């Protein structure tokens, strides 16, 4: 089951660059939430704060609190534990180049000490099917490297790899930006299915996509969360002038 996320007073820095300023929001469990906003406004930084990846940057710093379910991730758990429960698909596809397709998908389980072959086979197949990649790679699972796939296939491989560890929350940073319309539609289908098991946060530049998959949408601008509401409200009747300007294409 997915769990809700509650973000209060979140601030993030890169060195002296105050990238996220006083973010407050509540992401409901088992829903998809879209984050939109112009390039450089802090969407990636925000999702990286939700699984404590931001602090892996040597100049990254965070204050404020993030509750995943009942758990305050910055004070009550280790980063490793959090990242197991909060899966992430990065903005740029990053398969492990020296591993086969199979090993890439199985890596999360294996690196955490999981060895049972039958279960691994099953998880790998299911994850690749969910990520709409199984048909294309099922004959080369152990022969081809993850790096030999096309950019869009690599992105789906990374989605499968994140699904395989069965997280409770799934952070997807522009998962479909490198995909053709057919694969994009498959990923959107996947997000629909996943909602029953996971809480999904998806960053996207594609407003139609946000409208199609997400119940709620947040609009970021210059490191601030300008507006957060039901998706249909954001797109038909935004409260803030800046949101309206952005979604009608007047800037950004």
């Amino acid at each position, binding site marked *: 089951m997915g769990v809700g996320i509650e973000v209060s007073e979140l601030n993030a820095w890169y060195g002296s660059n105050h990238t996220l300023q006083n973010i407050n929001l509540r992401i409901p469990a088992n829903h998809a939430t879209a984050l939109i906003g112009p390039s450089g406004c802090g969407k990636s930084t925000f999702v990286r704060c939700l*699984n404590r*990846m931001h602090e*892996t940057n040597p100049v990254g710093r965070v204050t404020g609190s993030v509750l995943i379910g009942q758990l305050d991730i910055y004070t009550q758990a280790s*980063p*490793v*534990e*959090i*990242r*197991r*429960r909060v*899966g*992430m698909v*990065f903005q*740029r596809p*990053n*398969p*492990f*180049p*020296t*591993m*086969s397709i199979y090993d890439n998908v199985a*890596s*999360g389980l294996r*690196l*955490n000490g999981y060895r049972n072959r039958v279960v691994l086979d099953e998880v790998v197949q299911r994850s690749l099917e969910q990520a709409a990649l199984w048909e294309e790679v099922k004959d*080369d699972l152990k*022969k*081809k*490297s993850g*790096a*030999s*796939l096309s950019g869009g296939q690599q992105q789906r491989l*990374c989605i499968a*790899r*994140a699904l395989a*560890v069965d997280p409770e929350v799934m952070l997807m940073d522009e998962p479909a930006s490198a995909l053709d319309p057919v694969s994009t539609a498959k990923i959107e289908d996947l997000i629909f299915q996943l909602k029953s098991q996971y809480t999904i946060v998806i960053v996207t530049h594609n407003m139609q996509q946000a409208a199609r998959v997400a119940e709620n949408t947040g609009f970021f601008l210059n490191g601030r969360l300008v507006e957060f509401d039901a998706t249909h409200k954001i797109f038909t009747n935004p409260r803030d002038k800046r949101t309206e300007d952005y979604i009608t294409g007047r800037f950004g």
Partner: protein
Amino acid sequence: MAARELRAPRRLRSSNRIRRMLANHLATTAAVASTILVMAPLVAIFFYLLYKGASSLNLAFFTRPPAPVGETGGGMGNAILGSAILLGIASALGVPIGIAAGIYVAEFGRGGRLANTIRFTADVLNGVPSIVMGVSVYALIVLPQKHFSAFSGGVALGIMMIPTITRTTEEMLLMVPLSVREAALGLGVPRWRSVLSITLRTASPGVITGCMLAFARVAGETAPLLFTAFGNQFWSTSINQPIAALPLQIFVYATSPYDDWHRLAWAGSLVLILLIVVSVGLVRYVAGRGVLRGAS
């Protein structure tokens, strides 16, 4: 007007094309010439060794220890075995320490004082003449133990392997893209695990090359063995006894006054080079078997 405007670019174009073709041919010729220049000494040495040494290669050469002065025959069997043992000890010592130090410098201590000290020490160690290494190990191990030994020879060679391995491991690890490290951390893999199973594994072709370079370099070393392994006319497999080594035996044979021994020295040199080629090739083959289609 119009005609002239048309002609000018055409003239430019054709002269450009000739210039490009010339530059292309020049660059190709230079590349081929450099390749030949690099290959020539290796090929020359190899054929000269074949010419001088191949005739003395027979079964006895590989299976017999040296014959006493005055008798003909004999071989370098014990020296080949001795070199294998010495290099085994050296690798068992140098490879893990070298890689571990490289991992520390690149991953855990980056920018810290200890990491900088290790890097500096490795660079200095790389420049220490091998004879000095031999004398140092003599003072540190042979003198307290009061006897020459295979162990001390292996230690001397192993220490000489460390700096090369440490520096190449460091450089290769630093070449692994941040995105790959992030992928591992994002899966909830602990840092140490991600370094060993992902970063080091991604960098492994380069790390293996570094180990092979270090191995090939010390395989031919004579000076560090003079005061440590010392050499031995007989079979020995004990790490506490003086032991024969190919470079040492070549040195003894080559500086002797006998023609027969000179020929054996040539044959020994040939075998030494072949052994290095074979072991490097073998490691490459074994390491390359797991590489997948499309892996970078």
